[in-house]
């Protein structure tokens, strides 16, 4: 058996098991830890597909930065005492999820064949490397969306500060 087949099946199995953990764990901290496991496994799948830049960014941004956000917020909100799963929606969610899966399968199997293939064949990619190929496209064809993404990050930062700030004036009046 080839190495990438073993890598795919082990990463995929661990990703699905961890995803079940994310959805069904009662304690929210266990859910976040399962999310870290899922993200690292998906990053491993990216590496096995030959997308090294995205795999590294996945670990750096998702598995470190975003999960730290979640852990910080969970540590400030007291532990959730109620029921984790709503049983009346659970029965409803299974057929909806199955329908969504069928729809996704239909679209991805019949849609992808109609698309045009790009210029980055395996020979070209082995010559220039994945990182150089992605950054060439990112900084030429998608330069304007890249700048807009930086603006979105700035807006999100200001929004998070404004939303998370305490109402200073109200607190002072309560003290008086």
């Amino acid at each position, binding site marked *: 058996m080839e190495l990438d087949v073993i890598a795919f099946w082990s990463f995929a199995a661990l990703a699905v098991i961890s995803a079940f953990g994310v959805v069904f764990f009662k304690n929210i901290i266990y859910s976040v830890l399962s999310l870290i496991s*899922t*993200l690292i496994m998906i990053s491993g799948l990216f590496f096995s597909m030959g997308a090294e830049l995205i795999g590294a960014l996945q670990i750096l941004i998702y598995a470190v930065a975003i999960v730290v956000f979640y852990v910080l917020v969970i540590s400030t909100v007291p532990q959730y005492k109620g029921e984790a799963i709503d049983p009346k929606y659970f029965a409803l969610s299974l057929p909806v999820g199955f329908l969504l899966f069928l729809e996704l399968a239909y679209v991805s199997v019949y849609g992808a064949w109609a698309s045009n293939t790009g210029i980055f064949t395996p020979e070209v990619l082995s010559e220039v490397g994945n990182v150089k190929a992605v950054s060439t496209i990112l900084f030429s064809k998608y330069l304007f969306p890249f700048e807009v993404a930086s603006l979105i990050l700035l807006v999100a930062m200001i929004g998070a500060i404004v939303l998370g700030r305490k109402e200073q004036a109200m607190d002072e009046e309560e003290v008086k």
Partner: protein
Amino acid sequence: MVPYEFYVALSGLLMVLGLIGVIIRKNIIAMLISTELMLNSVNLAFVAFDMKLQDVSGQVFVFFILTIAAAEAAVGLGLIMAIYRLKKDVDVEKLTELKY
């Protein structure tokens, strides 16, 4: 080589699990975490189609999705903190101001 359909099927499975999580969880933070799962399944599908179509534009889009996910987590968790400070609760069954 593993065929790309396997990656796409895995991505669909993760997307369905994330949707089920959004539907059934009652804690609002757990719903946001399930949304992250759905975003990741989209990333996986983008890179799988890149592998099949011999292009790298999908990986550029994954880069943008990572950016948007960071912004979404920052704003969403800021909103949850504001809601918690107002209502002292994170149960979606009790956050029903907009319903009436």
